């Protein structure tokens, strides 16, 4: 999937949501920031440093990452999963950091630390993935459809948790989602993408009051924003 002449800046502590259809280039853009994808042209910088100039593993170890299905290591316990990045960074307090992160996502280590991911519900797994992404006090968080495969109730819980955690941690966040309402709930700004390009950037109110393109207007219409809250926006 190609990106075409995209420029995106996220201020420190801000959360930006990338929305659009499948194939719009949201995930591709997200993955440029932890160098899982290297763009053919242009530059990507995190914390004002060009990602290409940095050791790739060092870069990734300071960027949290939550994929759609959690991506937990199935053969490791919950605690060990959460301790992964502190361990990779050879922190001295890996166990404590992991336990604290688990506490933050509402899964006390005493109850959940020694379980395996396969023994958890989908919502619990995403909480663990979130804990893993913040356990090393990462300054940047990349979330790729983090709640996309959850049932409605778990999803709402996770959204609430995520919103409060973000306020608490002030971590710079890039969120990929299909769901405009989720974007509105979690993000400071929304970036609408289509076919590898940015269509419009702004708050949901701005998008609604002045859709920049016909596509943005149709996107808002289909999501029935302002009406009944729709679980399945797409």
């Amino acid at each position: 999937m190609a990106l075409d002449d995209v420029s995106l800046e996220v201020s420190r502590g801000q959360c930006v949501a990338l929305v659009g259809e499948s194939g719009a280039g949201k995930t591709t853009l997200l993955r440029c920031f932890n160098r899982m994808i290297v763009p053919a042209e242009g530059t990507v910088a995190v914390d004002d440093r060009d990602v290409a100039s940095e050791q790739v593993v060092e870069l990734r170890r300071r960027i949290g990452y939550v994929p759609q299905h959690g991506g937990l290591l199935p053969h490791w316990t919950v605690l060990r999963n959460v301790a992964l990045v502190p361990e990779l960074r050879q922190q001295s307090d890996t166990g404590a950091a992991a336990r604290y992160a688990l506490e933050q996502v509402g899964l006390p280590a005493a109850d959940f630390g020694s379980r395996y991911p396969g023994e958890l519900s989908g919502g619990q797994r995403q909480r663990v993935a979130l804990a893993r992404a913040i356990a090393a006090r990462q300054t940047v968080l990349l979330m790729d459809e983090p709640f996309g495969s959850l049932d409605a109730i778990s999803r709402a819980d996770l959204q609430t948790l995520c919103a409060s955690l973000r306020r608490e941690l002030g971590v710079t966040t890039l969120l990929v989602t299909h769901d405009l309402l989720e974007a509105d709930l979690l993000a400071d700004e929304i970036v609408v993408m289509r076919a590898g390009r940015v269509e419009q950037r702004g708050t949901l109110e701005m998008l609604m009051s002045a859709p920049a393109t016909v596509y943005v207007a149709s996107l808002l219409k289909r999501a029935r924003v302002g009406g009944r809250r729709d679980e399945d926006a797409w």
Partner: protein
Amino acid sequence: MVRAFDFAQGKRLWIAMVVALLLTTGATAQDRVPIVVASKPFGESYLLAEMFAQLLEARGIAVNRMQGLGSTEIVFSALRSGSVDVYPEYTGTGLIAVLHDTLPPDDLADSRKVFAHVSGAFASRYGVRWLPPLGFENTFAIAVKEETAAQYRLRTLSDLARESARLNAGFTADFIDRSDGLAGLARVYGIRLATVKPLLPALKYEALASGAVDVIDAFSTDGLLERYRLVVLDDDRHFFPPYEGAALLGPRASGRADVVAALTLLSGRLGEPAMRSLNRRIEVDSEDVSAVAASMLKSLALTAGQAPSTARTHGSGADGIGSYMWARRATLVRLTLRHLWLVALALAIATLVAVPLGLALERARSIAGPALAGLGVLQTIPSIALLAFMVPLLGIGAAPALVALWLYALFPIARGTYTGVRDADPGAVEAAEALGMTTGQRLLKVRLPLAAPVIMAGIRTAAVITVGATTLAAFIGAGGLGEPIVTGLAIADTRMVLSGALPAAALALVVDAALGIVERRVRPAHLR
């Protein structure tokens, strides 16, 4: 005091030994290397090889027996490569199977001309020497029951052609297929039988005796011809080439005057009636091969020692398989350990190569398909053929067997590693990368542990295949539990076959179970 004396003595002894060794190396080291006597896997070949071996031993020549090597192809390659020094061969086989040659019909009818042609060609082409024939021919024979011969007035193959439309034949698949078999009979004699059934060699005599068929193919020295009192029809047009038995000597044995002299003593001494009765003692009366060989050499006055007075029998049927195996337990334990050693070594080396190979293929997926397909093709080569391919390259014994078994074991392990690592939870592997694990960490901490059960399943499959294939390694002289199987098949001794086959089957189960335990132990924690 004593110590000093010992030391000086020891030192002097050392020097003396080294000097003696240096002086004698050139002259006699050659003579000390045992002569390797081999045979093909059928009774008569065992018997002749055993007679060669005893004859040499009686003259103080050291001998290594390498009995029951797979086929003409294998044993002849081994002779050329120097792994084998002597084995009994037949002139007709030399002409057709080795030289792929033929002669004008008149020459073909004359066994002396055939011998001259074959021995000349072998000497010039391979540097291999035929000693003068032993005195018998073991050609293809067409046999009928006495009653049938009388009823249809059959004496020659021409007679058979006259009556063939009324007779049913049971031939071995080999005879039906070869150009010097059924097709040639039809061409030369015009024999057109009412029906031709393919029969296993072991069954054809029974089929004839029971009247299921009227005509069978046989070898002219088969012991069973006597037992069933069959009539061998005369090849009046000399269609079958002569198959004269003789000792075939490789370069090293040809150069040993004492070996040539000893073995030549047998030339012309073994007539067809004698061979038929010797074969009968082995195939029908189940006498021990070495005892039969010893008594024959004694009766030919070629050995001085006394022949064993009581013919030890190897398959009287009086004892059960259990007591038979118990009586041979020391041998069977040795063979089992040898078998296990071959399997373990082949498997260990295969694992050391195939796991990294599978990992490499996973990183180069574009060539993984063709590469695994190539290894898969190796699997489709029958193990006996793969073993035979190794002989011209590596001779006989453990080395070529290990290489063949190793090649056989590669595919399941490489494929298990490749698919196991490729399919290991892609989401987890991707997340591990995105969170900053290095390639090596992902491999060692994530992908290999997750793939371990699939890799172990591949190793388990390979192990069971290898235990089975190793029984065939006896055909190229590697030993193991195939030894009693090959020998037992050759001399029609079911108990001997079982004494190898049963432990081999048990070994496969034990190895599978043991690796099953290992598999459970390497299974990732969340799957236990």
